């Protein structure tokens, strides 16, 4: 499938996957994770949502995946086989692609957490596969982040128009030149499995 190697991770965190999603994302995320085994990757998930359902979303998503799903907090390490959800009303960034930092901050692109803020914190790391994924959503959050990830050598995938509830975010990222491939969720899942490998 497009020449991706069958394993992508190096170091004990495996590959690093950052997924951004907004309107329509919760349904897609459940479907996406249901189609994948326990990836040899650490996943940071930024889904725009109100605070009062974030914990129930963690529990809902856990039903669809054998990866360990949790709400991100400062000091967490990105470990292979885990999915960390950026909490509402704060920005989540990565320090050296590995340690989580959750910080209060003003809205960026009208949202907090911002996908851009999370993606822009990722740095180039030789020998480690980094994959950025941008799913359905309103607005343009994630566009700058995907451009940044692509420049650092990451693989960048976005949800295609036909399968998106709202094509706004993927379209903006595509227009900005930050997307290598526009794909439906089932093909994104297949590529993630192939790129990251599984346990």
């Amino acid at each position: 499938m497009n020449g991706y190697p069958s394993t992508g991770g190096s170091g004990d965190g495996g590959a690093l996957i950052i997924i951004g999603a907004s309107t329509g994302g919760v349904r897609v995320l459940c479907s996406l994770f249901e189609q994948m085994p326990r990836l040899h990757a650490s996943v940071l998930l930024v889904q725009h949502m109100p605070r009062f359902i974030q914990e129930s979303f963690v529990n809902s998503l856990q039903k669809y995946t054998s990866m360990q799903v949790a709400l991100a907090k400062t000091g967490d390490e990105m470990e292979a086989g885990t999915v960390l959800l950026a909490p509402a009303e704060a920005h989540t960034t990565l320090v050296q692609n590995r340690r989580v930092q959750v910080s209060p901050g003003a809205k960026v692109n009208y949202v907090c957490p911002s996908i851009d803020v999370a993606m822009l914190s990722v740095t180039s790391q030789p020998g480690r596969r980094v994959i950025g994924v941008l799913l359905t959503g309103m607005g343009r959050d994630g566009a700058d982040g995907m451009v940044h990830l692509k420049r650092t050598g990451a693989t960048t995938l976005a949800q295609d128009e036909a399968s998106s509830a709202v094509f706004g975010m993927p379209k903006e990222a595509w227009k900005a030149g930050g997307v290598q491939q526009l794909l439906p969720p089932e093909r994104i899942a297949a590529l993630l499995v192939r790129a990251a490998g599984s346990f």
Partner: protein
Amino acid sequence: MIKIVKPSPVLVVDDMADVHMAVSGILRRAGCTVTCVASGEACLETVRAGFRGLILMDIEMPGLDGWATIRAILEQGLMEGNLVCMLTTRPTPGEEAEGLQEYVLDYLPKPFDSKQLLSVAQWAADSLRAAPGQAPETP
């Protein structure tokens, strides 16, 4: 017939009576308690009166449109306990939706796919049931 497991209440906000009939028919057969109102103003009154659950919101309505209604719900501090899904003929949200990304969880086009509608209703029910102190369950 698909049944929603432990459904949450649903509020349909649309100025078209045929949409009320179609949406409420599907959701009631699936076990949901459904309230239909014809305007953003009526939606606000219903939420002020205590409605908490899934709000299926049209965009283009006389008076307050869907986006203005959501902003009014937010400004009045009534969003907690409610999840919003747009149900609209408009293929893309447009600039008026800026700033509402965190509150509009899904966007379904009309004519809608009943499986997608039920999927949203089930997801909302699961999320609201699990959220602490949120929407009461209907049997």
